[in-house]
């Protein structure tokens, strides 16, 4: 069971699925999923197990080893993100499988959709285990390109506009990143992230390189003010696609920023950490206020992503000030719980949109009974977004606020708490709809009949949303294993001796 190859297999499984999906057969999607989802889960389990057993490890691709070759680099963080990927993408796959919108496509088009779906999956898996700066660029482009095309599967011209905007801005980000990598290579002669950290000497080239890398990745992470591409893209894509884009692809940008700023760039000063924190705080407020203003459910959820990503960036100033372990645990627990919650919220929103043909908030209340399970999933996910128990989001915020208190930076605590209250407002705007008594649904002992004009919602799509919501809530209780995993290979903060937690 202990084998560094698991990391390679975790990448290969979705890629094999992406290839197999190209066969436009009637049962291809089901068959591929029946193999790929368990396979990916198994491989992820192997990765996690191995990292538990032997700690941080590398898998030298081609047997060369860094710096000449490319290494897969797996620590607790990478393993945790892989696990998140397998769970979220796995459950979202179930949703896509039953999604009437997807089923309505011609079979050939469906098979292309599925292939792209697994491409995003594979690209993210490759990104999470990559230890090489340029390899990360390739995975970034893979994920962006596949994601862009998936967005274009959404309805109408808005999806096309959103898709192109996402492509242009995403490519700008990737090229900014690669320019930074070029300068870094010029300064250090290596692309391996760990070696890079050892050889990095602050100077003009390195500072500008760090800025380019950071801007490039911040675009991918939708850090304010580089977030403008996100709401239209996530708001107009098919539900499953929005779910993995918001839950995973955006997090990938944050993941890489953590890799860099708590890795090779850590010596470049705390000023950047504070700046990232401030932008994150602005994102929390800006995203939340916009989410409150939205009239369409999917856009509300999309803006909520902008806000939630903002929280994550508080990790940098908190870690820099010494609230390292708490902030690290809190921020990454927030990644895990927000990703599951956000995927659930998008899937729930998608169910409503597909069934009713609109996701305007004013319309949803007309059929609250019909949507009750989707709204329940949304409500459960909402608990995490608000940071209320019982949910992983609550525990994560507890940890992050503790870090802020311990380091005497009460203003970050204020951001976390105010953000939570703003989230309560926009979550409330949706959840209350679940309780509206509607004239369209006359009450009866047997439950109201489905109002005319509404399509039935497949049970599988509801179960996928509920499943993800339950995971995000469950993370509030089963948080010990992921937190222990995240500690493996946790980077040390500058000047701070790390005390492993009990």
């Amino acid at each position, binding site marked *: 069971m202990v084998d560094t190859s698991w990391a390679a297999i975790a990448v290969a499984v979705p890629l094999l699925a992406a290839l197999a999906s190209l066969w436009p057969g009637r049962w291809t999607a089901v068959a591929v999923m029946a193999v790929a989802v368990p396979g990916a889960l198994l491989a992820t389990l192997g990765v996690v197990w191995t990292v538990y057993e032997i700690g941080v490890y590398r898998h030298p691709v081609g047997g060369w080893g860094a710096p000449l070759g490319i290494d897969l680099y797996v620590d607790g963080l990478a393993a945790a993100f892989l696990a998140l990927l397998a769970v979220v993408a796995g459950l979202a796959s179930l949703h896509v499988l039953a999604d009437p919108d997807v089923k309505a496509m011609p079979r050939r088009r469906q098979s292309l959709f599925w292939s792209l779906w697994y491409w995003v999956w594979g690209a993210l898996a490759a990104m999470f285990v990559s230890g090489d700066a340029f390899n990360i660029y390739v995975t970034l482009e893979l994920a962006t390109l596949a994601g862009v095309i998936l967005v274009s599967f959404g309805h109408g011209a808005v999806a096309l506009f959103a898709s192109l905007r996402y492509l242009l801005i995403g490519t700008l980000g990737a090229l900014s990143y690669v320019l930074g990598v070029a300068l870094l290579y010029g300064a250090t002669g290596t692309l391996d992230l760990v070696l890079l950290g050892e050889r990095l000497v602050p100077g003009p080239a390195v500072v500008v390189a760090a800025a380019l890398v950071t801007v490039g990745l911040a675009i991918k992470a939708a850090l304010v003010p580089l977030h403008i591409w996100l709401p239209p893209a996530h708001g107009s894509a098919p539900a499953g696609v929005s779910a993995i884009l918001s839950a995973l692809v955006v997090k990938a940008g944050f993941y890489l920023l953590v890799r860099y700023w708590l890795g090779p760039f850590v010596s470049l000063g705390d000023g950047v950490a504070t700046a990232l924190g401030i932008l994150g705080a602005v994102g929390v407020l800006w995203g939340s206020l916009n989410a409150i203003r939205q009239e369409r459910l999917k856009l509300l959820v999309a803006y909520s992503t902008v806000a939630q990503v903002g929280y994550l960036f508080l990790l940098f100033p908190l870690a820099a000030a010494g609230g390292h372990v708490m902030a690290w645990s809190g921020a990454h627990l927030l990644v895990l719980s927000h990703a599951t919650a956000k995927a659930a919220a998008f899937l729930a929103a998608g169910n409503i949109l597909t069934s009713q043909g609109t996701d305007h908030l004013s319309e949803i209340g007309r059929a609250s*009974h019909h949507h009750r399970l989707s709204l329940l999933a949304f409500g459960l996910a909402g608990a995490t977004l608000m940071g209320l128990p019982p949910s992983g989001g609550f525990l994560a915020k*507890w940890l992050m*606020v503790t870090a802020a208190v311990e380091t005497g930076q009460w203003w970050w*605590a204020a951001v976390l*708490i105010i953000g939570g209250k703003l989230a309560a407002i926009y979550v409330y705007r949706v959840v*209350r709809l679940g309780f509206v008594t509607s004239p369209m649904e006359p009450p009866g002992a047997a*439950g109201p009949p489905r109002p005319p004009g509404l399509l039935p919602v497949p049970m599988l799509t509801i179960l996928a949303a509920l499943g993800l919501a339950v995971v995000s809530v469950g993370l509030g*209780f089963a948080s*010990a294993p992921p937190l222990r995993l995240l500690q493996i290979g946790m980077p040390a903060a500058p000047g701070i001796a790390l005390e492993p937690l009990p």
Partner: protein
Amino acid sequence: MTALLATGGWLPVSVVLSSFLTGIFIFFLREEDVLMRSLLNLGGAVLKVALGILLLWGVAQGFVYTFVLPLGAGLDLILFADPLALQFVLLSAGLWLVTTVYAIAFLEGSPERSRFFGYFSLCVTASTGIALAGNLLTFVIFYEFLTLATYPLVVHHGTREALKAGRTYLIYTLGGGMLLFIGAVWLQGLIGPVVFGPVPALAETDLPRGVLIAIFWLIAGGLAVKAAMVPVHGWLPTAMVAPAPVSALLHAVAVVKAGAFGLFRLVYDVYGIALAGAPAMGGLLAMLASVTIVYGSLRAIAESDIKKRLAYSTVSQLSYIALGTALGGPLAAVGALAHLVHQGLMKITLFFCAGRLAETYDIHNVHELAGMGRRMPVTMTAFTVAALGMIGLPPVAGFVSKWYLALGGLQTGNDWVLAVLVLSSVLNAAYFLPPLYVAWFTAPPPEARLQRRILPGWVEWGLLVPPVITASLALVAGLLAALPISPLAWAELIVALRYFPVTGDGP
């Protein structure tokens, strides 16, 4: 049997889960599965009571029940059963059972019952979780969970008015939750995990006094919202738009008591009475409680809607508990804890009766009670017993708690408490006696004006038996207060064991 008792931490866990799992199942039942849903409801409720009694028995035999779930990063979820926890668990579980019977009858034929009973079960899960919480983090988790689980019940009717009340409810309770959260995290950030152990967490603290006071008021402020203390009581009267069983169990017992119970934990288990008794903390809290007692009573007089009047009465009565807690003497603490149970029994009776009146004769206003004593003698008798208890007339249980509170005031040198209690009792009488008078001693209106709704026989019984049981219990708790199984005796035991250990041979 011993094997069952020696299950360690799993017994408190199963107490919490017994209602949680039934609640989850109920969510997925179809509306028309009445029998299945009722069986699940009652089964879960009976199981919870049985487990609670088992837990009590085990504790009495000297078993220790602590369940620790590590959450990582040094945080733990702890459930444990100390005598205080047991008291609240048994109160919640017992009244949940009674209310479940009532609610099944009350909601017969109405829509969205699976949703209702699902959330209803979750609420009780949260309140038993609050009771059994072994540290501050666990308490906060269940406390906030209770907020979220109650909201759907408040807005159950889905009318504009209900949604508005739900909004008010959320604004107050989430605001309170925020204060509690800040206080709890701040405290934990300073001293590490706050465990409700034998020694108060802050017993030997060297934190600056200002910080201690600030944290005290943050947490107490958060708790005061649910305990409906002035000036953060506003949500409770508006929340009366909820169905009667919700008002009965949650707004008389589970939710509001969670706040009061939390205050007791804060004063006795976190700060310790030696520290919390300071004028800036306990002293001020006692004043605030007194103000609430008087204010709630005054507002109750002004309300003629029965449920609203009962709600303001709750506002007032709850602060007895806060008052007893804050005074900081053994007798006052006994009074507070006894009142925790007594008030629950009496107030739930009143709400049951009010709900039955509304269901059968569509009576919502005090003036409409005329002649009800003759039309519904049993219901009105239960109502009368509970109301007299609220006023504090012996031999109903309310007298006992007021008596101990008064003694506690004298014992701690706060003689003014006596004045507050007397004033409050007069005011209680002023708003409870008129409806009693109207009901028993005025002539009923002509038949034509009052249409008795015809309900199925079992529904009638389901609405009638619960208030009779709770009223009897309130009476018995007062009559037999000297017996070792009475709520008073239990309160004395808690206080003697944990908070004011008696030197010498002890209890």
